[in-house]
């Protein structure tokens, strides 16, 4: 869909809200938790980044996304912050929802860090059961996030990690509570491990984390079926490299959250950076999520 940037609202030096309106027609309904892929034109290439929608699911006239300028960004968020202006037209995918609200929950415990708050801003429009939201952020971002949240007793901002006793919070939840996690890798790992240690079943832990494609060492990929050998440059993802070679590689969220882009690994050692593969499947090294994961070995051979 072609969408025009209607408004850019700067919330802090590194956080801005973009209002996107369709160039023509009405927008598809997007349930809370949905994201879109925005194609961002760079000087030498196009970036495809996933952003959660924060606008009301009822709103068919516009989508709102919140973009953080990523330090050492490979390009996408820096362009949106530095070069985009109202009136620009971007290609935006139809919304996909990999992070829906579980409607059987008796209570929702929402736990986010940094820009991971964004899907929960959409949740707030429609939550049907009691909820509690805890958000961790840096002190310099506090004002920006506070401006996005209603002032309510069940919504708490924490500006230092010590301010929240996560173990006590999770240990005190009754059986009908579902936990939702969204934030950077490290945050996700700690929160998930704490919940699992307390006996939380996977069925009640919902998580989404985008943006693991931070680049890394260059490596070579051999594609057995296509008969191609490609170099994955440090600032390119494996998926982007496949696409640049004209291959129709599977993908959906482009952020290591959905598992759609998984390809079988025939040899080589993947550097798993996704949130999909179980520890057993990671250890097996039999597949790789091309959108975020890279290689620990100089070469990978894929069945593709």
């Amino acid at each position: 869909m072609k969408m025009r940037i209607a408004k850019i609202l700067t919330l802090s030096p590194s956080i801005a809200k973009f209002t996107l309106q369709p160039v023509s027609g009405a927008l598809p309904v997007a349930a809370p938790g949905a994201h879109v892929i925005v194609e961002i034109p760079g000087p030498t290439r196009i970036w495809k980044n996933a952003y959660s929608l924060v606008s009301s699911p009822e709103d068919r006239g516009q989508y709102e996304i919140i973009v953080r300028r990523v330090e050492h960004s490979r390009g996408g968020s820096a362009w949106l912050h530095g070069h985009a202006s109202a009136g620009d037209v971007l290609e935006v995918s139809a919304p996909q929802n990999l992070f829906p609200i579980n409607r059987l929950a008796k209570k929702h415990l929402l736990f986010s860090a940094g820009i991971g708050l964004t899907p929960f801003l959409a949740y707030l429009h429609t939550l049907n059961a009691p909820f509690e939201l805890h958000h961790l952020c840096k002190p310099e971002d506090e004002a920006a996030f506070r401006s996005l949240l209603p002032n309510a007793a069940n919504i708490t901002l924490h500006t230092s990690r010590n301010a929240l006793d996560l173990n006590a919070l999770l240990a005190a939840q009754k059986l009908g509570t579902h936990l939702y996690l969204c934030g950077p890798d490290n945050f996700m790992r700690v929160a998930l491990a704490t919940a699992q240690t307390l006996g939380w079943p996977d069925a009640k832990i919902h998580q989404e984390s985008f943006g693991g494609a931070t680049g890394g060492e260059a490596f070579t990929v051999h594609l057995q079926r296509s008969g191609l050998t490609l170099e994955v440059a440090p600032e390119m993802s494996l998926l982007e490299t496949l696409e640049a070679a004209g291959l129709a590689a599977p993908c959906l969220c482009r952020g290591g959250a959905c598992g759609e882009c998984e390809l079988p690994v025939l040899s080589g050692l993947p550097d798993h950076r996704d949130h999909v593969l179980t520890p057993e499947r990671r250890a097996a090294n039999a597949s790789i999520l091309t959108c975020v994961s890279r290689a620990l070995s100089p070469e990978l051979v894929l069945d593709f």
Partner: protein
Amino acid sequence: MSKSRPIYAPFKLDLAGKAHLIVTNQPEVPEREAALANIEIWTVQTIAPGVQAPIRDNTRAFRAVPELFTHLAHRLSRAATGLRLYAIGTESFIWDAHNIAMAAGLSATEIHLTQSGPLVRRVIVPQNIVTCPGCGAALFVRDHFSRRLAGFMGVKVDAETPGQIPAAEVFVS
């Protein structure tokens, strides 16, 4: 076997859980598990009509299944996440326990069911014929199990021609 018939795994503790509650309507309780600290076992055992067996350590006996279920619902409404529930017993007992647990907010992965004891079938309503104790209708018992109602389906056997009832087979449990 019809697709509606559940398949049960043998009893085994789910070690991902932090606390464990076992409910059973059978006389045998898992002895080895009874010795563990974070496990409670609830049974229905009487030493005389209406007198439950004494409570010992982590085992608690109720006078009857409905009493056990009333306490179960109350207990689950207060329990913290991390609890695993195990129901061991007849098919109708374990699915009643399952449905109480689901209503309390447990997910399927936190509930473990083990079928044990007589293979008696609770009949809800269309290879066998029973007489409904409520209305006296002759019912044909289908091999169809309802997890929601924790019972088998019975269909009025003479619905087409009232009074024409084939001879019933004897069902031995």
